[in-house]
């Protein structure tokens, strides 16, 4: 019997260790697993490497992790946004690391990790500051930069519906990094708005097959 559903947010984040690399879904406010991130905050893990598109804004989710000094390094594409006050303050004080990655490369590095690949060459970033120190190879007459896979110990993502096997469907643009992050972490934890019975998800429309998912927890839509 496979049942990936867990009863509480605390159960969902149980066992995440200090020093973990945590992939956190979302783009701006869209698709952020807010309640899971707050559960991680309550859980208490620290010295985290957080991989996410933005670096949080206001006082919620990723910004709260940074405010509470749980994050050693952020790996992201765009740490500046309206209200990214906590990241900027910690960054200016030299209290947090930043690895800046072009957005498509960030996603593809996680895809490579999830796909069991040792990395890839991309034209993105060639001849720029973000290629410094990286191997460059000319392919098809054009410079390409070698990028390493980016695996997570944990992925925290948000989807719309799940069944007990962990099959997922998403809602609108909230999908963003979820399907890729789900493949790239040793432990993939998903918050969904609704549980459904096996067979209720149209198999032609399942976006993330349950094999990539370890735990699902229900959080009512706010």
């Amino acid at each position: 019997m496979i049942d990936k559903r867990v009863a509480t947010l605390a159960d969902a984040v149980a066992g995440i260790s200090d020093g973990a690399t945590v992939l956190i879904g979302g783009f701006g406010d869209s698709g952020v697993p807010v309640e899971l991130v707050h559960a991680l905050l309550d859980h208490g893990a620290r010295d985290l490497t957080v991989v996410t598109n933005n670096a949080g804004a206001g006082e919620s989710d990723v910004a709260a992790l940074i405010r509470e000094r749980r994050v050693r390094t952020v790996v992201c594409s765009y740490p500046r946004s309206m209200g990214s006050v906590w990241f900027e303050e910690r960054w200016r004080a030299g209290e947090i690391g930043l690895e800046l990655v072009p957005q498509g490369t960030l996603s593809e590095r996680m895809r490579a990790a999830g796909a069991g690949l040792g990395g890839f060459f991309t034209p993105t970033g060639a001849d720029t500051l973000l290629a410094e120190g990286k191997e460059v190879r000319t392919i098809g007459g054009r410079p390409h930069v070698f990028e390493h896979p980016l695996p997570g110990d944990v992925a925290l993502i948000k989807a719309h519906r799940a069944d007990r096997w962990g099959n997922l469907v998403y809602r609108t643009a909230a999908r963003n990094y979820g399907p890729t992050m789900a493949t790239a972490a040793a432990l993939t934890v998903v918050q969904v708005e609704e549980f459904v019975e096996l067979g209720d998800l149209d198999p032609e429309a399942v976006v993330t097959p349950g094999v990539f998912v370890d735990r699902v927890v229900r959080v009512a839509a706010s």
Partner: protein
Amino acid sequence: MISPLSDVAVARRVARDIPDGSYVNLGIGMPILVGDVVGPDKEIVYHSENGILGMGPAPAPGEEDRELINAGKQPVTLLPGGCYFHHTDAFVMMRGGHIDISVLGAFQVSETGDLANWITDLATMPPAVGGAMDLAVGAKRVLVMTTHTTRDGRPKLLPRCTYPLTAARVVDRVYTDLAVLDVGPDGLVVQEMAPGLTRTELQSLTAARLTFADDVGELDPH
């Protein structure tokens, strides 16, 4: 008297160069205006880096969906025929050359088509790149929309960019409030100029050396 084009007039000029049936990505800032002035006679499919094709205009007040946003994190809608996909596929479309046109803003463009549009100040603000580098390397055509000079009158079209590059040798055409210029094998070629502007005046506002097409057209300031 010189009549520089308003941002909207520049957007109208860019829109004229977008063929019916194109798949287009509009960058944050000035390029977004293009979507407002493309006529209803053309069917254009807009791409957003967070996983949307067939993106529509802003929703009516009260109809916003916080998950359905564009790259600038503003609420948008989905047109009939539009679809959602995950982040990695969004960049497969872009990096893989499946998007016909990318319209980008710029701090600087060089005479060889280098683009600088992601950072000017490395010291006091955390660097942020987002999808800029991917948008610049992958589209079939890269169009830049910018003011011809900075607010304090310094040229933005240069022999070499002085700000950190977003990508090298990628820009096909530049649209400013004063001119339309193609990036050719021998540098920038002026195709159209604002009414009342002389070639000498345009050159004096441009650090890169200009050549002029055989029949330079006049831009419509409206």
